[in-house]
């Protein structure tokens, strides 16, 4: 009997709390694929005082939305919704405890190629990367080779193609590049609940030997230079030898007192 009373008491307390907890109605509850929006939050059904309000975007407080207005309504105007302004917005009323509601602003995924022009070497592997920003991030990525009829590329069907995808990045690795077949445009598409966007990457395949000719040219130039330098020195050597020894520094001179090698002019300082 007593336990029943206790439970009933607890339940009523809890219900009382719930009934005085502020309700926040957010309007609109969700923004999808719009160019601009006005987010509004209304706090109803609460007698708790509010010290102010602010908005957060993806967890970060928006400093210029902080207001000490104790009103029950707050709004945020998004003039231009792009992938950078999309995300989760929270309106927070500074009550005890804080009351908040979330509005999701969704846009098309912003798919961008890391580099629009890629280069690979013949028989080597080529790596094409696409990244995505915004909210929500794509759930599906797909690759296709562009052409008269775009051919989709699937992961795992052959050793040639490997696709690794995470929500914000996808990588297509093409093994054993072929000079003729693999040159061209590749399309990466990211699909989320809102829609699909894509970007194009142009792949160039270079012959392995392409760099070899300039390299050999430079090596030849180096060899020629070194040869010229040595020949020039041999030509001047007979005149130079006496000068060299003559102009040696003090230790040099004294050393060769003991050592033979430099025949000439030590006499001046020899004892």
């Amino acid at each position: 009997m007593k336990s029943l009373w206790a439970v009933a008491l607890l339940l009523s307390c809890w219900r009382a709390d719930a009934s005085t907890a502020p309700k926040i109605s957010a309007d609109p509850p969700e923004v999808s694929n719009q160019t601009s929006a006005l987010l509004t939050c209304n706090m109803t059904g609460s007698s708790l005082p509010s010290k102010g309000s602010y908005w957060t975007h993806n967890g970060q407080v928006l400093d210029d939305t902080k207001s000490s207005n104790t009103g029950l309504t707050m709004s945020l105007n998004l003039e231009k919704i792009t992938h950078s302004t999309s995300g989760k917005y929270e309106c927070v009323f500074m009550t005890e405890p804080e009351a908040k509601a979330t509005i999701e602003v969704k846009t098309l995924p912003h798919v961008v190629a890391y580099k629009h022009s890629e280069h690979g070497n013949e028989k080597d592997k080529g790596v094409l990367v696409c990244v995505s920003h915004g909210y929500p991030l794509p759930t599906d990525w797909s690759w296709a080779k562009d052409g008269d009829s775009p051919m989709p590329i699937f992961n795992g069907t052959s050793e040639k193609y490997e696709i690794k995808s995470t929500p914000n990045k996808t990588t297509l690795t093409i093994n054993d590049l072929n000079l003729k077949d693999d040159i061209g445009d590749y399309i990466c598409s990211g699909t989320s609940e809102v829609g699909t966007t894509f970007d194009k990457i142009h792949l160039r395949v270079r012959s392995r030997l392409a760099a070899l000719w300039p390299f050999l040219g430079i090596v030849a130039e180096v060899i020629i230079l070194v040869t010229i330098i040595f020949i020039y020195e041999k030509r001047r050597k007979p005149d130079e030898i006496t000068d060299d020894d003559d102009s040696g520094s003090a230790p040099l001179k004294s050393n060769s007192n003991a050592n033979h090698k430099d025949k000439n002019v030590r006499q001046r300082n020899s004892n």
Partner: protein
Amino acid sequence: MEERHTCTDKSVLDMTNPKPKAESQSDEAEDPDGGWGWVLVGALFVSTSLVFGLMRSLGIFFVEFVQYFDESAHAISWISSTGLAAQQFFSPLGAALCNAYNARVVVMTGGLLAGLGLILASQATRLYHLYLTMGVISGLGWGLVFTPMVATVMAHFTRRRTLALGLAFSSIGLSSFAFNPLFQLLVEKYAWRGALLILGGLSLNIVPCGALIRPRRRSKAPAKVDSETGSSPVSVLRRISSYLELSLLSERPYVTYTLGITLLNVGYFVPYFHLVAHSRHAGFSEYQSAFVMSAAGASDILGRIVSGWFSDLGHFRLIHLLSAWTTLAGVFIMLLPLSSLSGSYSALMVISLLYGFCSGALTSVVFVVVPLIVGVERMMGALGLLQLIESGAGLLGTPLSGFLKDVTGNYVASFIVAGSFLILGTLTMATLPHYFSCTDPPPPPQRSSLDDKHNGLHSELEHMTSSPSSDTNHRV
């Protein structure tokens, strides 16, 4: 007698202080300030640009590596860290080999290794291949090239040393300007493998630079070989230690100077790594921040050349000039965050230009002070050891400033600490003997005799330098 006159009274110094002059004349009597010396300056210009200019522009490849090897930017950045560390670590080795054999062979071998490292890197299939090739092999090559070439050029000049070095080191800034777009072009035309192959070929151009070094000063090798009897482990060790000039580590002036330069290095690189990030932090756009860096780089080049020219005018002692440039650079580093926090772009620009000028100015002078402390004979080994010891500072400085930024939330603390390290370096250098005198002290007596054969040499030296007619004796 000199103290009665001011430091700028050069003519009086000439007359009343024949001793140092005679010593210096004997040191450089080979090719006093001209002729072949300038050809070597050109060779140093080219090889420095192929070593440091190349190192600084490798960032272009890192973007490719991150993508191709699917590794983090942090792992890729270790490639250049390894290369730089190897260059500094192997510097004493390069110096020792020059003492043992001759500089020409060492530099040419270094050039071959540097090129080989890059050529092998073009065939890499794993990331650690790049560490080994671009990092260790090329780094070893660079270590064998830089210190010997600098020492050789310095040996060919006395009065114009700083100008020669300043002109040669200006290549670092100039080549960074030129290499960045060039490397980008190479990567686009040939993909990174082809571009690395061609870079390897370009690096081979260090070999003809080394070939320009005339074989001279073989005295050290034969002297040492003769003085050591047999090849017992003890004598081998003694020989190696003399090639490496390890005895320098027990001499206070050298150790003091090295310590000062090491402290300098802790703070020196901080602006290079953090200035752009700090400018962005303070609210300037990407282009504004990048432009500030470029401007600092340009004034760096100017600073090197102007400081080189000015130092050789002889109005002030080199050590004083070095202290002045270092202190100024430290002050400007400390002012950098304050100027950008005030929101004024022009203030940031002005301070950055001044900082760039001073930091370039001090690099011209740093190496030239070494022979004044240890003498021209031991300069080679001294430079090698200096490079090795100061490398530790670089390893300390950047992580420290990054740590300070993480802890305090902005870059103000790291810049102030960096600037204070430079000033600390200056204070350390102020404890050098004869710091406050107006004239350079005479360079220390040539290598103390390891064996009796050279005792006679010493008394001869003293006899020669103290006699008034020593000038004519040495001016061959």
